[in-house]
């Protein structure tokens, strides 16, 4: 052959990235403050939108007068529902069932408002200051209706109805059962009945939401930029709402400043702002402020669950019965029923418990809509289950680790089919492989569990109440139904991955580049990734349910594998060599005879030259990964708490995680997810709470009211141990890791607080939050402000 490759490009080095703690290349931009978040996108010619929101929890709208607002300086337009005339079903809900009452969120309130913060009108002005000025001048004539904020009151016969046409505030029901759902206690069995209250929380990513909409391509298309975890779902919603062809709409999402589920939603503002841009034929941007965030971005968790557990005298759980009511707020979010379907499906976690009957209901109230928040229903499920384990151990005077061992599924019992579920994206619950007992043992060992009583005694001598809490969970991760990715070999010999997985902190840019480089055997520097553009990947799902690395990474790698096939097919044709004589090794084409090694960087020019044509713009492949079954990550968490009985302050000096998220793509990033998730979970049970007054007025409207965990809340002694059992349900054995930290922490801390307060004959039945005031009430002491 005429072509003789230089020695420097002979195959030699194999680049390996999967499983390594690769530092993130994206940090370079972020650390320089050039992260390119939505608010950083320059829009010099955009008008600014401001949403006028309901100040009433429940009221009829008798009229809206906007003349005064319209005359205010700098105001371009004012829109109400009547001006926009969008269909009532423009905002999607993905987990409705047959029989579900349709309470989808209205894009803008027409004749009735159902929560404080609901969009009622929109001002477009030259800048935000002027828009806010005018907003105060929009006159809305409300006729107040009685409001209901408590979900247990809302299911009473005399409760105000949010949707009178339905005659009830219960809009959705799910039932999960297994084994004998009519199980009863035998003589000698222990029966535990408890009511668990889970309080309302919210995600609070540091970045608020925002939307930019502008006409492009000579006004024939609209480009919507939004802070969304699911640009493709938004694309579908916009197509439906506007009756436009899919090709006329482009949705992109820039890097997100955190998501945690609250951006897994199609929001009214994401329809309203583009609708206004279409009407005005000019670019419009909307930037949420933190006050708006609290009153309009979805909340999470709130529910009440009655539990009945039957436990044999040996500590073996016979059955579990749940009846629960979730407070889903005033209307459906995108997946409003997933917290309860996930809880019902997964409440038994790693435990055998052969009999289950869980009935859960979604109840509408005059609050902000509820949606998934990091972990969906898994944190509530784990907290309830682990509290019951501890209560059973306490009643039976058993060791808390021992009772768990007696109930844990053994490796040889897996995989295990636990039946069908209404949880969107799961279908059937089929636990994959794992070793739950080994996970518990690893955590106990790392926690010095055997020596804990001496630790408690020495804390007690210092006047502090010390407790330890164990919690385990199995959670659904890496859900389907499918994902798409596209990989392109550029004419310059580098690779671009087009992905729908949104970068929002998890490091998905780096993970995906790692896996593509691994597959191709090339240096990572040669792989770029572009994310969140519906023009570049037309059909995709998005980023949620711990699927970014496991599903998004897998499909990226499989697309790279397709690219290799495509390259070899083309090379065979161009070089006139039989396809089976070519193979891909160490980042290039090798041939069993004739042709020497062709490195990837030379492929586009070499193949183009052979063809006697100019470069055709590269070689492309795409792949669709269908995810028939999600995978199931699991962990054991142990929290040690110390309570100061004088101040009521709870500290967590030590925290232990033993976890298995399958094959790890990047351990540095997985640890980051775990620590961040645990501290978020700690905040959610020690501090955070969304508070409404009885009239439905939101009280927590700022970070001064809704207190996030700070640097001092990090457990100073934080220990993590990893297990790495590949799952059969993922082509590369990966499970998800994004949510588990949060899931385990709520349960472990709740058990530790109960353990610390055992002397007070008191147990935690819910998620708190366990604020100093709460602790002092339990200790039956007045609140004392220590002198400074």
């Amino acid at each position, binding site marked *: 052959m005429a072509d003789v490759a230089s020695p420097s490009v002979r195959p030699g080095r194999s680049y390996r990235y999967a499983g390594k703690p*690769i530092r993130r290349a994206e940090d370079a931009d972020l650390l320089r*403050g050039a992260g390119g978040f939505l*608010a950083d996108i320059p829009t010099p010619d*955009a008008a600014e939108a401001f949403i006028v929101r309901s100040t009433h929890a429940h009221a009829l709208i008798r009229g809206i007068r906007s003349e005064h607002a319209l005359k205010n*300086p700098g105001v371009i337009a004012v829109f109400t529902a009547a001006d926009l005339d969008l269909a009532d079903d423009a905002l999607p809900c993905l987990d409705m069932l047959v029989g579900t009452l349709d309470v989808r969120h209205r894009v803008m309130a027409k004749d009735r408002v159902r929560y404080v913060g609901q969009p009622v009108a929109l001002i477009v002005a030259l800048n935000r*200051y002027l828009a806010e000025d005018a907003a105060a001048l929009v006159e809305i004539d409300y006729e107040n209706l009685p409001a209901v904020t408590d979900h247990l009151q809302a299911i009473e016969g005399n409760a105000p109805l949010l949707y009178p046409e339905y005659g009830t505030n219960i809009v959705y029901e799910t039932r999960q059962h297994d084994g004998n759902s009519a199980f009863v206690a035998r003589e000698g069995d222990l029966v535990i009945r408890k009511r668990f209250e889970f309080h309302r929380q919210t995600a609070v990513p540091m970045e608020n939401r925002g939307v930019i909409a502008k006409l492009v391509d000579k006004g024939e298309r609209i480009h919507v930029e939004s802070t969304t975890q699911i640009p493709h779902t938004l694309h579908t919603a916009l197509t439906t709402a506007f009756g436009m062809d899919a090709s006329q709409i482009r949705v992109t999402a820039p*890097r997100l400043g955190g998501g945690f589920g609250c951006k897994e939603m199609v929001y009214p503002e994401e329809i309203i702002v583009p609708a206004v841009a279409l009407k005005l034929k000019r670019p419009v941007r909307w930037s949420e*402020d933190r006050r708006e965030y609290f009153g309009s971005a979805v909340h999470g968790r709130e529910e009440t669950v009655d539990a009945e557990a039957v436990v044999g005298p040996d500590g073996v759980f016979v059955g579990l019965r749940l009846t629960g009511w979730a407070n889903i707020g005033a209307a459906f979010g995108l997946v409003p029923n997933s917290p309860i379907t996930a809880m019902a499906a997964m409440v038994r976690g790693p435990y055998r418990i052969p009999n289950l009957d869980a009935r859960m209901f979604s109840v509408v109230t005059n609050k902000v809509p509820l949606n998934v928040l990091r972990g969906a229903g898994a944190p509530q499920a784990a907290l309830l289950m682990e509290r019951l384990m501890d209560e059973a151990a306490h009643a039976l005077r058993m060791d808390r680790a021992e009772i768990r061992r007696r109930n844990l599924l053994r490796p040889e019992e897996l995989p295990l089919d636990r039946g069908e579920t209404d949880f969107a994206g799961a279908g059937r619950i089929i636990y994959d492989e794992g070793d739950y007992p080994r996970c518990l043992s690893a955590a106990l060992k790392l926690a010095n569990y055997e020596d804990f009583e001496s630790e408690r005694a020495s804390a007690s001598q210092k006047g502090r109440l010390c407790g330890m809490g164990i919690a385990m969970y199995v959670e659904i991760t890496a859900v389907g139904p499918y994902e798409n990715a596209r990989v392109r070999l550029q004419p310059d010999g580098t690779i671009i991955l087009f992905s729908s997985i949104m970068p929002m*902190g998890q490091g998905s840019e780096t993970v995906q580049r790692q896996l593509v480089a691994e597959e191709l055997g090339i240096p990572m520097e040669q792989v770029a990734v572009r994310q969140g553009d519906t023009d570049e990947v037309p059909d995709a799902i998005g980023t949620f349910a711990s699927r970014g690395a496991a599903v998004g990474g897998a499909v990226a790698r499989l697309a790279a594998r397709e690219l290799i096939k495509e390259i070899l097919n083309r090379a065979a044709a161009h070089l006139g060599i039989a396809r089976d004589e070519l193979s891909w090794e160490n980042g290039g084409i090798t041939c069993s005879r004739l042709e020497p090694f062709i490195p990837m960087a030379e492929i586009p020019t070499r193949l183009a030259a052979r063809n006697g044509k100019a470069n055709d713009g590269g070689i492309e492949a795409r792949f669709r990964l269908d995810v028939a079954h999600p995978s199931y990550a699991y962990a054991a968490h142990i929290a040690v708490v110390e309570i100061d009985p004088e101040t009521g302050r709870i500290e967590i000096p030590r925290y232990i995680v033993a976890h298995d998220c399958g094959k790890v793509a990047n351990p540095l990033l997985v640890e980051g997810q775990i620590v961040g*998730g645990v501290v978020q979970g700690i905040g959610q049970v020690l501090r955070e709470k969304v508070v409404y007054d009885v009239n439905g007025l939101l009280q927590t409207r700022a970070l001064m009211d809704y207190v996030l965990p700070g640097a001092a809340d990090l457990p100073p002694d934080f220990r993590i141990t990893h297990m790495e059992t590949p799952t059969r349900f993922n082509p590369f054995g990966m499970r998800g890791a994004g949510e588990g930290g949060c899931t385990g922490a709520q349960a472990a801390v709740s058990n530790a607080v109960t353990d610390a307060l055992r002397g007070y004959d008191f147990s935690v039945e819910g998620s708190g939050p366990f604020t100093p005031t709460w602790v002092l009430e339990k200790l039956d002491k007045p609140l004392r402000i220590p002198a400074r």
Partner: protein
Amino acid sequence: MSEAISAIPNVAWAALDEPTTELRVVVNGKEVCAVVPDRLLLSDFLRDCLGLTALKVSCGEGACGACTVVINGEPARSCTLLAVQSDESQIVTIEGINLASGLNPVQQLFKERHALQCGYCTPGLLMTVHCMISRGVQPDSDEVPQYMSGHLCRCTGYRNILAAVRSALGGETPGPGRENNG
């Protein structure tokens, strides 16, 4: 070097009957003279008028620290100051301490320690670290968590942030050619 800047972000302020004040500040070593609406926030002035978008606005009330800049050597919340309040002062944002390209040693330590995830809180936090270093805060001092208590991070759980800050305060230099750089 003096640069007169029209501090009118979108078209509209000038034509309106909006009270304004002349403002002279030095931003990242550059003298800026501008006529600004009295009610314009400093964070908006820096981001919208000067294009210094590294600082982030998150809580809008001084609770989270994402908007932190350094004013006359002190870390300050730009979201709760009016631009006119910064008259005659020296302001430094992260654009002022960035190298021409690449990462400065503190930024490199943050990358090595995976001390950021979404990165939204990071630029503001780095401004406080900048002040801590210039004040000679010791790495094992109780002041470290005190300074950091002014910054909320929703992603990392703070562990890697504290590690990176302590190593920066200890004068640790980033590992040269450390492998595993993505």
